[in-house]
């Protein structure tokens, strides 16, 4: 049985702009991480921990499933 691969996508970029054009730095400060980390998450180069994902969602005033979605595949 093959291991399930999960690709996580996110809507951070769009949601930032919906939140008064929030910058990556502002979101980073609200989430307690560096701007580089937000940039990497946004471009799919890094998947955040569950805790950080909740923090980002809270900073964007959204539920976590609105910010992060996953695509299942074999």
């Amino acid at each position, binding site marked *: 049985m093959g291991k399930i691969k999960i690709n996580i996508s996110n809507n951070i970029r769009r949601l930032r702009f919906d939140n008064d054009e929030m910058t990556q*730095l502002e979101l980073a400060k609200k989430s307690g991480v560096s701007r580089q980390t937000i940039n*990497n998450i946004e471009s799919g180069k890094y998947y955040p921990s569950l805790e950080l994902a909740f923090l980002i969602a809270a900073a964007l005033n959204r539920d976590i499933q609105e910010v992060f979605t996953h695509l299942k595949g074999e």
Partner: protein
Amino acid sequence: MEYKVRRIIMTLVVVGIVYLNFVFKVNGFLGNQGLEGFADVKGTAIIILWNVLLMVILMIVGHILLHVIGAIGASVKNEINPETRGQDIDLEELFDDVDDEMDKLINLKSSQVGFIMVGLGFVLGLASILMDYQFGVMLVVMYSSFMLGEVVEAAYKLVMYHRGVIHG
């Protein structure tokens, strides 16, 4: 370029300079004696200790230069841009040194790679004793592996900051 990336590049440059200096010093120390020159263990140890001291000093100077040049660069950039002219520089953004979960993961993964290099150097150093080389050879091999480990670790960090990092 992010502050952390600049800091890693600075580390690479410092390690490169220090190791080059070490190679030249060892070359001069050995003279025409070849590897037999390593019989002078004390002399070898002194060269290594001086290099460690040089590395500490260069790291401190490098950090100071990084901050000074970074601040000057940012203020010049501020003045050139009409929108930001006269505004204060956000030092928190400029020297963003928050160590978050991604940095910790990158540090963990890169230090594992660095440890492999150091481990290899340790084994090679012991092997050199078995092969009846002078004790000084072992010191040099181990010191070189520490330096190489530092280079590989820093290079690996740069790659991960550029390409991203995944858990597991």
